């Protein structure tokens, strides 16, 4: 549920028509504080990652990156035809830890230099086989950027360029991880792929960057990694592009440029479009707030109801059509009213309307 970096863009991509969520990402708000400031009520639900989940994630990452990324080398080497003992690894977070001033920009410059060497015709071992947490960035407007950092990038000798990778401690059973978790991870990787392409474009390497990523998940046994999975991300890259367009548009509209500014966003909330949908429940702290804004419409019954009845249709209008107290304005509405009555009869609740229609 993070709003920063690739995760923030992934969230926008899941619901690009919701300008309120986009504004929250642009303004880098604290979601719970934002909810409380907006609604003037205490946030009652649960929010944030559990300590045990965060610890597991850290443990998984440490197990992959420790000892010069021995475990990560071991599982990636066969895929790319390397000798894992001879793989050259650079960890940019080891070289420039987070606490150092201007860490993101400095790591980005180092990443840029590595890619420049690749553009200059260098291949491993002159450039690293494996980069741990390279820094990339996506331009949003003018000279402004969103920094994104894949967990790793591995050099593909066939493509002569790096492929981004994500490490997730979610457990894989029967060969595939949970669908919902995988979808978020794929979108994150889509943002990272786009950022890699943005850098490659500057170095005339664009043709070598494909819309794909490597995923490393966990097996059911402690933090032992599952064999890596490579996936193509055409759809996700396309959706992140769309998310970036929305990011730029909302940023321009609110004149908020990547710094925390909750007050400005709250002041403009009434003019920010919302797009309430099923996926909001698991991704946004404002789910119940937005649900209350659409409580009179069919959207409270879910996305399918919006698709079939029309998102702005009021529940009372449908009830009135079914019981004949409202006139159908078209043949379609008349047919709809008849079908609603049929369903009521089928489910044994025809007494629910007066049957005047």
């Amino acid at each position, binding site marked *: 549920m993070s709003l920063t970096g690739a995760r923030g863009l992934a969230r926008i991509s899941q619901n690009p028509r919701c300008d309120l969520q986009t504004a929250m990402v642009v303004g880098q708000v604290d979601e719970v504080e934002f909810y409380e400031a907006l609604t003037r009520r205490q946030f009652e639900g649960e929010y944030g990652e*559990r300590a045990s989940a965060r610890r597991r994630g850290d443990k998984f990452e440490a197990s992959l990156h420790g000892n010069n990324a021995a475990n990560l080398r071991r599982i990636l080497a066969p895929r790319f035809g390397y000798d894992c003992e001879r793989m050259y690894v650079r960890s940019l977070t080891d070289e420039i830890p987070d606490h150092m001033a201007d860490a993101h920009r400095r790591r980005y410059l180092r990443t840029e230099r590595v890619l420049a060497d690749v553009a200059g015709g260098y291949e491993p071992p002159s450039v690293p086989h494996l980069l741990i947490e390279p820094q990339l960035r996506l331009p949003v407007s003018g000279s402004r950027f969103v920094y994104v950092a894949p967990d790793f990038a591995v050099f593909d000798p066939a493509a002569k360029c790096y492929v981004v990778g994500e490490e997730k401690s979610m457990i894989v*059973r029967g060969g595939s991880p949970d669908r919902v978790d995988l979808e978020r991870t794929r979108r994150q990787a889509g943002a990272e792929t786009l950022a890699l392409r943005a850098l490659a474009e500057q170095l005339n390497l664009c043709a070598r960057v494909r819309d794909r990523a490597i995923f490393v998940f966990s097996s059911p*046994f402690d933090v032992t990694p599952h064999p890596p999975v490579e996936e193509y991300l055409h759809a996700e890259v396309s959706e992140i592009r769309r998310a970036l367009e929305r990011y730029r548009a909302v940023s321009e509209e609110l004149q908020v440029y990547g710094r925390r500014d909750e007050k400005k966003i709250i002041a403009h909330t009434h003019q920010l479009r919302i797009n309430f949908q099923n996926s909001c429940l698991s991704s946004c702290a404002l789910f119940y707030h937005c649900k209350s804004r659409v409580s009179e419409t069919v959207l409270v*019954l*879910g996305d399918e*109801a919006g698709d079939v009845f029309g998102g702005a249709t009021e529940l009372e209008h449908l009830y009135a059509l079914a019981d004949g107290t409202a006139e159908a304005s078209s043949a379609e509405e008349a047919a709809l009213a008849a079908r609603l009555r049929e369903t009521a009869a089928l489910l044994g609740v025809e007494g629910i309307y007066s049957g005047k229609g």
Partner: protein
Amino acid sequence: MGTDFDLLAGRLWSRRLGRALPVRSTYSVAPDPPETFGIAFIRVAGEERVQAVAYGLMGACPSVITICNPLARGAHELEPFARALDEYLMGCYTRKRLPRVWLAHPAALTVLDLLGYRYQSNRHASEELRTMGRQCRALCEEAIFPGQQVLAVASMLLTEHIVTGQSTVEDQHLGAVLAWVDPPQGHDPATESQRRSLVPAAALLDQGRDKKVERLRRLARKCESRSELESTNGQIHALLEEGVAQEWSLLEEARTAFWRLGLAPAPPSYTERLVEASRDRLRYFLSFGANQPSRPHSLARRLDTYEYLAALVEERDACSDALVRERMRKAGRVIAVRVESVDQPGPGRNPCTLTLTTDQHVQRVRPGTVLKSADGRIRGRVVTLAQSGEGQRHIIFRLLEGVRKGRPRVGQLLDLIDTVPFDPRRVKRDVYKLMREDESPIVYHRRLPPSVPRHALPDRLLDLAEGRFRR
């Protein structure tokens, strides 16, 4: 897959009424046997390890295990659970009864499955725990089969049988669903559902208790005296017991609410087949292991089994559940027909051809479609179709079964359904045997054979067409 309009409209009416509405007239599972076993877990988020489990016969006070240090190597704390599960399953087989294990929601099923993966062949675990692992895997493998009758996941069963006045995504919270199934007097179910959604129903402690347990575990690691450690661990146990008691209570409430829907049982003629298949499969998994198929033939056999069972389930629903049958009718899968004439030269013998008429708006029928009557008396194949008037259609229907006693009379009204289960497995066994003998590299080998070079096309295509071209 298209949206089922009736289910969507059902949500609309459910919201109006202020309670859930059944969308089936029969239960999809056989009645609970006299003894059913329930399991409720509390897991460590992310690790998916058990830190508390409540288990035992449903309707009775559960046994509870709480684990202060769930990430430690040894898991002997789970041995009483392992023994209880084994006793229940083996007891059912001794008495030739179907086991029935209740879980609250899919998250509990995931925890059960992971217990299976982690212990079934764990050399560091006791034999009791390895047996538990195999049994957990067997149960979870059985859960995937259409129409299975062993594992009852309450939230999935409830949402299969009712619609609520909220969205499908909110229905994923069992407490939120129960607010609609059994709305408290004087309370709006939508508000109650939202209130209940604030408490996790996914085999987790609520965040408040979770933070306390985390803090106490950190304290426990720094305890200097035995009494201090015991006191800290005691507090952890108490919090875990509260959490798992809540999960057990949710499970009991869901099971009671399910059976209180008051639907009719499906006829034994349909259910018995599924019960027997479930019992035999589980016995096989318990005896020989529940390894997932990975080779071409075993995968193909597994898919054949899924397909056949899905057809049996659909047949049961179409023939014995009035509500489901009406929904299938709207999709054209069930057709109401009238028998206009019967052409049977030899009484009680083949051939027997019926002329049927229907004015049903949606029909998914074409020449060659095999249909059977909902009462199971006749089965036949559509020979031809023709429009015969405004909105009316004539169907010439050759009987394959039911030419004697089941033969319908002129004027009789029938429901014909397009689900005619056929068990292909015996036939396919022979097919797979032949395939194995043929050993096509496309199926059996990792690499494709080298491509066969094409011969150049002849200059005169007419020669080719007239068969004069010789390779």
